[in-house]
C-alpha cells in the first residue's frame, strides 16, 4: 500500500560504489566499528559513536526506509537520547505529544491515567511518530556527520570472528567485497542474519492470538490520547486500541481470533466493516494494513566476542507497552559510550560485558511486562478469562481493581543492577539511586535563560559529569569529568526547587552521571578519593 505521507521525508536512497570494493586480500579496509542495519537503532548508535569521534561504517541491505508506520510510540527517554544526537526537536515538532491514556470496558470508561503528571520536564512522556519519519530524520543527521559512511544495498553474507575483530563479506549489486572491523554491532532486526551467522539461538514464547493493525487517514475530533478497549461494543469479546499519529493518521489495533485466516483478514474489504463499526462512519482511507502474531524472546548473550547485538536482533517483545523500538534505542545509548571508551583504550574490553548485563536484564523486564499485558488481553484458559473478567468488573467500583487492569504498561527506563554502580553509603530519602537514569528538572542560567538539566548535561559533552548541589567551592574534579552546579554563587538557579526535590538534594549533595545519563554514584559530600573510586568503577576499571 503506497504511503502518501512519506512524500514529506526522503525515503529512497541510492547504492553507490565505494573504493573499499576494489580492495582485497591483505589490503582490505579496516574500521573500528561496522554497524549492520540502518533502522532507528543502528542509525542512532552510529550517530552517537560519530559524535564521540569514532568512524563508523553503517550497512543496510535495502535502499529505502521501510513502509508502514510500524513503531509509533517514542518515549521520553528516547527523546532525551535523540536530543543528544541533535534530532530531538525535529521528532517532537512532527510528532503527536500525548500523556493521557483511557481504558474502556464495553461502552464505558474504566479509568484514565497520565504518564507524566508533573510539570518541569523538557520532554513529554511520549510522542507518536511513524517510524519512517524517525528514520528519515536520523538519516538526515547521519548525512551531516563525515565520520559515518552509510552504504545502502550492502548486505553482510558472511562473518568470520578473529581475535582482534571480525572479517565481513558484503554483497552489493556489483559483487561482494570484504572489510575488517574491530567491532560489529548487529542492529539488523528480528530476523537478524548476523544472529544466525554467529549460531545463536533465539528461543521464547510464541503467542497464538493475531492482531490486525490498520492505519487510517481521517479528520476526527478524538483527543490525542491512547484509548484501549476490552470487549468493546464494536468488537465483542476482543480488545482494541486507538492512537493518533501525525498527518491525520490513526493507528487502530484489533485483536483477532487465533484461528482467523491471515490472508482474508488483511483484505481491505474485510477490514473496512470492522473499522466502520469502531468509528461509526466510513469517512476514512487506509494508509497501511498489517497482521501480526508475536513472540517474546531474547538471545542468551548480547555480546558474541566482537559481534554485539542491539535492538530487535537481540530481543523481541509484544507491541503492547511501546517497549520494542524504545528498548532498542536504550541499547544504543548504553553501548555507544562503552564502545567508544574501549576503542580508545580508556576502558578494558570487559566494560562491554556490562552492556550485556544491563541490557539483557532490561530485556527480561520488558518481556515480563509485555507478556503480562498480552496474557491479560488474551487469557489462555477459562479460569484466566474468569479472573480477567473479575478484575474488569471490580475496576468499575474499586481503586485496586483499576490498577490491576492491564491494557499495556508503557515503557519506562530500567534501573540497572550493575557492577558499574557504587552503592549508597549515605542516607537518602529520595532521588535516583545508582543505576537509575537522571530525572529532568527546569533550571535557570545565571544570565536568566531557562534550561533543563538534560540540556545542561548535553552542553557538558555527554560524558562523565558531576551534578553538584552547591555550597562553597564544590568538589575538586578528576580530569575529563564535566560539571553541573545547581545553587551556590555561580551555579544554575533552581527557581522552582524541582531539581533539589527530584534529587533529594542538600548543600554538598553530588551525583556522578555516566555518559548515558545514568547515575553511577551519589554522595552527600563528595570527597576526591570516593569520587575517583566511583569513576574507576563506572569505567569498568575495577
Amino acid at each position, binding site marked *: 500500500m503506497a504511503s502518501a505521507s512519506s512524500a514529506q521525508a526522503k525515503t529512497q536512497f541510492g547504492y553507490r560504489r565505494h573504493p573499499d570494493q576494489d580492495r582485497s586480500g591483505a589490503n582490505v579496509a579496516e574500521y573500528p566499528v561496522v554497524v549492520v542495519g540502518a533502522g532507528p537503532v543502528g542509525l542512532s548508535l552510529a550517530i552517537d559513536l560519530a559524535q564521540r569521534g569514532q568512524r563508523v561504517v553503517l550497512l543496510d541491505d535495502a535502499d529505502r526506509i521501510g513502509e508502514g508506520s510500524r513503531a509509533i510510540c517514542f518515549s521520553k527517554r528516547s527523546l532525551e537520547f535523540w536530543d543528544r544526537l541533535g534530532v530531538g526537536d525535529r521528532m517532537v515538532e512532527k510528532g503527536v505529544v500525548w500523556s493521557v491514556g483511557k481504558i474502556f470496558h464495553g461502552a464505558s470508561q474504566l479509568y484514565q491515567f497520565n504518564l507524566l503528571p508533573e510539570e518541569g520536564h523538557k520532554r513529554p512522556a511520549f510522542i507518536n511518530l511513524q517510524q519512517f519519519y524517525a528514520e528519515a530524520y536520523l538519516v538526515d543527521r547521519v548525512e551531516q556527520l563525515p565520520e559515518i559512511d552509510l552504504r545502502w544495498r550492502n548486505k553482510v553474507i558472511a562473518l568470520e570472528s578473529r581475535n582482534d575483530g571480525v572479517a565481513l563479506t558484503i554483497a552489493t549489486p556489483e559483487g561482494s567485497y570484504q572489510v575488517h572491523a574491530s567491532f560489529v554491532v548487529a542492529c539488523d532486526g528480528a530476523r537478524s542474519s548476523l544472529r544466525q551467522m554467529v549460531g545463536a539461538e533465539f528461543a521464547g514464547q510464541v503467542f497464538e492470538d493475531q492482531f490486525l493493525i490498520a492505519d487510517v487517514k481521517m479528520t476526527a475530533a478524538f483527543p490525542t490520547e491512547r484509548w484501549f478497549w476490552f470487549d468493546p461494543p464494536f468488537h465483542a469479546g476482543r480488545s482494541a486500541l486507538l492512537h493518533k499519529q501525525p498527518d491525520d493518521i490513526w493507528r487502530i489495533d484489533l485483536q483477532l481470533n487465533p484461528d482467523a485466516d491471515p490472508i482474508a483478514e488483511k483484505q481491505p474489504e474485510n477490514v473496512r466493516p470492522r473499522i466502520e463499526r469502531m468509528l461509526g462512519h466510513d469517512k476514512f482511507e487506509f494508509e497501511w494494513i498489517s497482521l501480526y502474531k508475536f513472540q517474546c524472546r531474547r538471545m542468551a548473550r548480547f555480546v558474541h566476542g566482537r559481534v554485539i547485538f542491539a535492538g530487535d536482533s537481540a530481543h523481541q517483545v509484544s507491541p503492547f507497552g511501546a517497549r520494542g523500538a524504545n528498548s532498542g534505542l536504550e541499547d544504543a545509548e548504553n553501548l555507544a559510550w562503552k564502545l567508544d571508551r574501549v576503542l580508545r583504550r580508556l576502558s578494558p574490553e570487559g566494560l562491554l560485558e556490562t552492556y550485556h548485563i544491563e541490557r539483557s536484564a532490561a530485556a527480561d523486564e520488558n518481556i515480563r511486562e509485555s507478556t503480562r499485558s498480552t496474557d491479560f488481553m488474551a487469557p489462555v484458559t477459562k479460569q484466566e478469562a*474468569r479472573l480477567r473478567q473479575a478484575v474488569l468488573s471490580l475496576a468499575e467500583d474499586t481503586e485496586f*481493581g483499576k490498577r490491576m487492569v492491564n491494557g499495556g504498561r508503557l515503557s519506562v527506563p530500567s534501573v540497572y543492577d550493575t557492577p558499574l554502580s557504587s552503592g549508597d553509603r549515605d542516607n537518602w530519602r529520595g532521588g535516583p539511586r545508582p543505576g537509575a537514569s537522571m530525572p529532568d528538572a527546569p533550571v535557570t542560567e545565571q544570565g536568566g535563560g531557562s534550561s533543563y538539566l538534560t540540556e545542561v548535561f548535553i552542553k557538558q559533552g555527554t560524558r562523565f559529569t558531576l551534578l553538584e548541589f552547591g555550597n562553597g567551592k564544590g568538589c575538586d574534579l578528576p580530569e575529563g569529568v564535566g560539571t553541573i552546579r545547581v545553587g551556590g554563587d555561580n551555579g544554575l538557579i533552581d527557581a522552582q526547587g524541582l531539581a533539589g526535590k527530584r534529587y533529594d538534594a542538600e548543600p554538598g549533595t553530588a551525583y556522578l552521571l555516566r555518559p548515558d545519563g545514568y547515575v553511577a554514584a551519589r554522595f552527600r559530600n563528595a570527597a576526591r578519593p570516593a569520587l575517583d573510586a566511583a569513576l574507576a568503577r563506572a569505567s569498568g576499571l575495577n
Partner: protein
Amino acid sequence: MALSTSSNFAKPDDAFRAIVEAHRGLTDAQSADLDAALVLVLANHIGDLDVLREAIALAKRRMPDASQQQQQQQQ
C-alpha cells in the same frame, strides 16, 4: 509477615457459613466467577506478595504440579 495458619476467627463456623451461603443458589459457573472476584478482593486486602505466595502454596499442597500432571497423562 508470614501467613497465619492459626485460627483467626472467634467463630470459625460463622466464617465458613458466610462463604458457603454466598454460593447458595449459584450455578457452577457463577460460583467460579464469585470465587475469582473474592480471591482478588482478599488478596488485595492482604496486600503482601510473600503472604499471597505462601497462601497459594498451602492451597495447592496436595495438587501435583502441572509438569507432573502432564507426565502422568502421557503414561
